[in-house]
């Protein structure tokens, strides 16, 4: 059967495959190449792919600038906190949904599902006044708390689905032995669910790492800025240092890129089942 394919079809499909690859991959490659060039060489006409101005200058400049390094540290800290809190709160909520029947179950579940449709911009105006009232403006907490609202629903729905596939015999066995519910949850259910938790955790990390609007409006001073805002702030300064902006973009994309390449399977499984189950 394999030999039965017509040659022209394969040639046409191969060309399409390469064109698609260029469409998706060329801009990324161009980012990488530009980050290594000098500013004037980026806009040489005709453009060269590799030229003599190639150097790590931009990367060194960024990594030795304490203000810019701070953006990275802020992003790592905020994203890590969001992932941990989302998972802990989400696991507990998912346990309640999966193991109990209670009067408000339907209502709370509907609220959690519909939260996903609320646009961030709609919440931004009230958030600003709430966050100022709570004296959290320009703090890490302003970002962590507001991000949680957007990361939790997906986490709860995914983990509830996961827990539902695990038999209740497991937790009952623990409780028969005199263990508490908490023990059943954290010692039995959670360890079994690690693959699902990894996928949810990575998706959460990605959301937190990439968020822009709240980071822009709820923080103010340079020492609180995260990567997405930091990259954009480079654009506002005097002359455009494209090479440095590209280097910063690349450095800022590395964590998500690495996660993605190493855990592709989890990502794709999580994303597609998320899309189907909602």
């Amino acid at each position, binding site marked *: 059967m394999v030999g039965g*394919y017509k040659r022209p079809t394969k040639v046409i*499909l*191969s060309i399409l495959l390469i064109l*698609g*690859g260029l*469409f*998706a991959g060329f*801009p*990324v490659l*161009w980012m990488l190449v*530009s980050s290594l060039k000098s500013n004037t060489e*980026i*806009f040489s*006409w005709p*453009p060269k792919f590799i030229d003599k101005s190639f150097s790590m200058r931009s990367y060194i400049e960024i990594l030795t600038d304490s203000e810019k390094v701070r953006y990275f540290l802020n992003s790592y800290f905020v994203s890590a906190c969001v992932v941990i809190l989302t998972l802990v*709160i989400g696991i507990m*909520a998912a346990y*309640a949904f999966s*193991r*109990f029947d209670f009067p408000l179950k339907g209502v709370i579940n509907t*609220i959690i*599902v519909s*939260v996903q*449709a*609320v*646009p961030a*911009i*709609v*919440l*931004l*105006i*009230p*958030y600003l006044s*709430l966050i100022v009232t709570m004296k959290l403006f320009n703090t890490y907490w302003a970002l962590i*708390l507001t991000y949680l*609202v957007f990361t*939790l629903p997906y986490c709860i729905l995914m983990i509830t689905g996961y827990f539902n596939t695990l038999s209740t015999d497991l937790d009952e066995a623990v409780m028969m032995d005199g263990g508490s*519910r908490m023990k059943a949850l954290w010692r039995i259910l959670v360890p079994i669910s690690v693959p699902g938790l990894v996928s949810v955790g990575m998706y959460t990390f990605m959301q937190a*790492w*990439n968020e*822009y*609007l709240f980071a822009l409006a709820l923080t103010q001073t340079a020492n609180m800025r995260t*990567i*997405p805002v930091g990259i*954009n702030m*480079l654009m506002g300064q005097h002359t455009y240092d*494209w090479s440095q*902006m590209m280097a910063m*973009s690349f450095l*800022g*994309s590395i964590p*998500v890129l690495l996660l993605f390449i190493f855990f592709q399977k989890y990502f*794709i499984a999580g*994303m*597609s*089942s998320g*899309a*189907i*189950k*909602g």
Partner: protein
Amino acid sequence: MMKNRSKSKLRRKITPYLYLSPTIILMLVLMVVPIYLIIKYSFQNNAIVVADPEFVWLDNYKKILSDSEFWGAVKTTFVFVTVSVAAHIILGMCFALLLNTKYFKTRTKTIARVIYVLPWVFTASVIAILWKMMLQPAGIVDYILSIFNLAAKDTEWLSNKDVALATITLVNIWCGYPFYMISILAGLQGIPEDLYESSALDGATKWKSFLHIIIPQLKPILISIAMLDFVWTLQSFALIWMMTGGGPVNSTQTLSIYIYKLAFNSSQYGLASAVAVILLLLCVIVAIFYVKQQKKVRE
């Protein structure tokens, strides 16, 4: 004994709420209260700015609905969303079918898949800044197009009001299709092999098997992701804000940008809240269809 039992019964009733308490508190404070607040602001004159704003009923809505800038934003949003979603479906479908053919080796397909998904992993500011650089006059896009004689060397893409919206939509298409591709690919792999084979026996052509087997099988997934994407694109802010800020001459001003400018550039929080409530209603309507669709899929 009786007392003990009723006590444990009570405990069993309370336990789920204990587990849910962090979620409930968070959702109350940062979701229910804000939505109440934004609706309240939308009925007030000078909301937030003054300590005791005047309650003006629907005045803000009347003002907004008779403002041509609002309708301009509605139109821009409509074009941006429909073109993006349609193109996402088509591109996502084409790439998924390409990656699902038997013509290529598994390793080729794995590498191609990683490359095809790339645009999706970057954050909006990276995408904005990268495309801004590529779209500069005499930049790489102009160069590539000039090879095929499609554009002049110094073509402006983002500062020309006739093409800015199209350009931004194209960038949004570039970074949004992988989500469809991944979901469709997962769906395609779930179609049983014998469905294809029976159609091959019938002498069905490729095109027919696509129309009569693949499309119906994928329909639930397609509708779900299209609705999710519709809601996401409806509220997209970061990409447009960083690439054009809504300009030139408001040609790329979507509802989100309009709200942001009203609130944070001109401090008209009441008007901004009214537009926000309208946007929220739009999203809720789509979400209701989405939830209904999900229920149908489950049944």
